């Protein structure tokens, strides 16, 4: 039964892919990209508008990105490129894991226990309006070394998103579900495991996705100001050393890697919340 279901799904997805090339949607999308890239190419390299004088052109960036011997040292064939990606990913991964490991229990407690919320939430709300970016100089002073300040900043920015959304997730649970479980004889621990945790899961994953976005956001600032190596660092260095194509390559790579990491969380969330994926017909 399950096997035939899977087969049906694969068939339909294949059909979807074929549809993509047949329908006008695909061509309209192509037109969109052609307009964007065409504007970039024409304004920089053909019309040479005065404001775009310093901008690297489309062909220049593509040539540099795919060149075996790039003139500014960064392309898909150089080790430095992959080291920057790895360093950035490693920082985000460490911070994100720490933020998740702290933020989810913290958020669950905030939503679950009124006492804990009373004691802690006011301080949490006092600190939250301060942008994480504003912590940069203080973080450099508080933590020695080059790595810790960046990791601290990234952790903090994704911690707030994760904790807050987990709290909202617990609060979004219908009180009658909790009461029903209690009536059927569930102990508080069982309510927590079987009602609160799965009930908060959708919001939790929204929080994780927002947290991942925040993590990349603050990573760039941390690397630009304090870090060494990494994509944000590369952007800033490329700007300072007038290696403008490298700057654009790093920006585009950041977008790609950031998108990939969000997609990963979305996939994990859909796997953990099959009941929801089915409801939304994903």
């Amino acid at each position, binding site marked *: 039964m399950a096997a035939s279901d899977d087969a049906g799904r694969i068939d339909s997805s294949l059909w979807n892919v074929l549809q993509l090339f047949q329908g006008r949607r695909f061509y309209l999308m192509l037109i969109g990209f052609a307009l964007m890239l065409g504007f970039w190419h024409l304004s920089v390299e053909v019309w040479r508008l005065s404001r775009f004088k310093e901008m690297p052109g489309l062909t220049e960036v593509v040539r540099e990105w795919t060149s075996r011997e790039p003139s500014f040292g960064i392309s898909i064939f150089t080790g430095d490129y992959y080291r920057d990606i790895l360093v950035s990913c490693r920082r985000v991964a460490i911070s994100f894991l720490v933020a998740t490991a702290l933020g989810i229990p913290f958020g669950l407690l905030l939503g679950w226990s009124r006492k804990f919320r009373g004691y802690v939430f006011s301080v949490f709300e006092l600190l939250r309006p301060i942008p994480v970016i504003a912590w940069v*100089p203080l973080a450099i002073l508080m933590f020695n070394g080059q790595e810790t300040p960046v990791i601290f900043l990234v952790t903090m920015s994704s911690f707030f998103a994760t904790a807050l959304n987990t709290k909202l997730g617990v609060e979004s649970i219908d009180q009658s579900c909790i009461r029903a479980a209690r009536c059927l004889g569930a102990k508080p621990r069982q309510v927590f495991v079987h009602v609160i945790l799965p009930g908060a899961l959708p919001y939790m994953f929204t929080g994780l996705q927002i947290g991942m976005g925040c993590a990349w956001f603050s990573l760039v600032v941390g690397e630009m100001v304090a870090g060494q190596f990494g994509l944000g660092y590369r*952007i800033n260095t490329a700007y300072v050393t007038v290696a403008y194509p490298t700057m654009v390559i790093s920006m585009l790579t950041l977008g790609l890697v950031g998108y990939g990491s969000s997609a990963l969380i979305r996939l994990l969330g859909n796997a953990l919340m099959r009941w929801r994926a089915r409801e939304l017909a994903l």
Partner: protein
Amino acid sequence: MASKGIGSLIAHRDMNTSASASLVGNPLSMRMHLNPDVVRSIVGVVAFLAIWEIGAHSAQLFASPLPWIGRLPAPEAVMAVWGQLLVQKSYWMDLYLSFLRVSSGFLVALLIGVPYGLLLALNRVAYEVGFPTFEVIRPIPPIAWIPASILFWPTQGLSIGFVIFLGAFFTIVLNVIGGTKSIDRRYFKAATSMGASKLNIFRRVVLPSVLPSIVVGAVVGMGISWEVVIAGELITGGGSASGSGSGIGFFIWNSYVAAGQAAEAKIVVGMISIGIMGYVSSELIRFIGRRVTPWLVVR
């Protein structure tokens, strides 16, 4: 869709705050005894300040300063520095200039983002041409645009303003699209069958339905704008004239670089000032939002 997630999230947060506010403001229990939630939050804040105080003085109290919080300036030093700054004109100039950058970038994002989002949401062709490119550019963090923006725009103010615009623009557009797509199709059918013209449908159906999403997008976008303005001012590095004031992010960065007397205290004052400014401007947007969507306010 992600935008819907954010939208429902913020809406929920608002509902949540109003619920707790009504819980706190129960006059009967206030008269009899103090609300336990209020007592707890006071205890929490006092404990927080105590830890801060101990951390700041740990070098004198213990043999060596505590890790991490040992480098913090003492709360009373922060207050003293803040007191001095409050009467200085440059401090207010810093706040004013940052606010000016945030509000101009944010307003442009609103003016371009709302029509663009409506266009994408209402016109199929526009959506299919415009949305994929939008989604490709969106994952690049706005901060990563700062160097490119400095290259492109002639003045520092314009380049920071442009990055703020980018930060707020994506959120606003996503929320407008999400809001428009969630309108019940039956409203369109009902309006059409009663003879409404396209313009009429837009004015009477689309605009009022999208307004709450615009407000949500604006609140989130305002938060991002404050993050971005600080990042922009930190990264463009130091600013020109520090005497006349040039932005609160510059103020923090200059205090950090100068590293002189009470540098840490100045940094913390800057951070708190940004927090207050950000909070006030978000509340301002929420207030305006409640005024333009009175039907959502629960009496």
